[in-house]
C-alpha cells in the first residue's frame, strides 16, 4: 500500500470535534517504525498528577532496577 504522508501521519493530532462518534481505526497505511522509541524521545508537556515526572519518554512507575550477572 502506498503511503500518502500528506494525509496519513503516524503521529496525528486529535480529530476535529464531532468526528469521534464513529470508528476510525484502520484506513491508514502502516508506517512501521515511523513511530517508536526514537520518536518517543521528543519532549512533551503534561500536567503531573503525583509529583514531577520525566515526560521526555515517560518514566514508568512501579519497577525495581537490578543487575544480573553475565
Amino acid at each position: 500500500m502506498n503511503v500518502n504522508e500528506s494525509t496519513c501521519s503516524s503521529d496525528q493530532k486529535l480529530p476535529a470535534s464531532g468526528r469521534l462518534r464513529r470508528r476510525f481505526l484502520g484506513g491508514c497505511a502502516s508506517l512501521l517504525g515511523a513511530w517508536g522509541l526514537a520518536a518517543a524521545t521528543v519532549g512533551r508537556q503534561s500536567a503531573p498528577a503525583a509529583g514531577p515526572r520525566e515526560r521526555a519518554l515517560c518514566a514508568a512507575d512501579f519497577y525495581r532496577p537490578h543487575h544480573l550477572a553475565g
Partner: protein
Amino acid sequence: MSTVTCELCPHACVIPEGAAGDCRVRVNLGGRLRATTYGRPSAIHVDPMEKKPLYHFHPGSSVFSLATAGCNLHCLNCQNWQLSQRGGEEMEEVYRADPAELVAAAQREGCRSLAYTYSDPIVWYEYVEDTAALAHAQGLTNVFVTAAYINRAPLRRLCRVLDATNADLKAFDDGFYRRVNGATLKPVLDALVTFREEGVWTELTNLVIPTLNDDLAMIRRMARWIVAELGADTPLHLSRFHPEYRMRNLPPTPTETLRTARSAAREAGLNYVYIGNVMGDEGNSTYCPRDGTLLIGRSGFVITHNALTAQGRCPTCDEPIPGVW
C-alpha cells in the same frame, strides 16, 4: 547490563535493557523502565456508557473513550487484538495527545466522563493517572475498563482518581485464566476487592464461552463469591461470546445458555444480573429486586425507558437502587 523488574502487574516481568515487558509497551531503556505509549493513543471514540458496559453509572451519558496499544493479557478470544496485541510502533494510527488535550476534547464532545478502555489501561498506567487527575479537576469522572490483572499497591494509588470500573471476571477457574488469558485468577479477585474497598463503583463482566466457562456450577460459585466479597448489589454482565482472533472454532454463545446462567447467578443471591451482546433481551434491563418493576429498559446500548426517581429509587416501592445516577 541493567535489568529491571516491573512491579505493576503480577507478571513481574524481568526486562533486559532494550526489551519490553509482556505488555509490549513498558520498555527498559538504559536501566529505567519507560511507558512508551504515554500521550499516544491509538483509538479514541465517543461511546454510550452502556457500551463499557456500565448500567448503574450515569446511564445514557456519553463517555470519551480512549486506548493506547498494549495489554498484559493475551486472551485467545480478544475482540480488540489489533490494538491490544501490538506494541505502539506496530500501530497504523497513533495520535498525539497530552492529558490536557484529552480532557479538553472530552468537554468539547459534551462528555461528562472519560473511559480508559479497549486495550487494558493498566499498561498505560501513568497516562491514565495524569489524565484522570486533570479530568477530576475539571469536574469529569473516570471509568476504568480492565481485566484487573494488577498489583494491589499501584491499583490503590490509581483508585484515588477513578470513579467507576467495569472489570472482567473471565472465569472462576485459575486453569481457564492460564490457558485462555495468560494470567491467573487470584490477583484478579484481589483487585476486585480493592476496587470495592477504595469506593470505586464496580460492575463485572463475565464473557460466557461455550464449552470453556459455561459450567453452571462454576457460575454459581462465582456468583456466591461476588455476593460474599463485593456485595449482592454488584452488577454482573453475562456477555455473549463471538468467535474472534484465535478462537474462531467455537460458536457464539446460545442465548438460552446466557439466560440459564443469569437465573443461576440470581438464585445465588445477585440482585442485578444482565445479559450482554444480545439485543433486546429482557436481561438487558434493570428491574427492582424488591417488586420487579422495570426501572431502566435497554435494547443494546440504547435506553428505551427510565423510571428511576431522581434519587435513584424504584418509583413503585421506593427501594433504593445502588449506582451513581
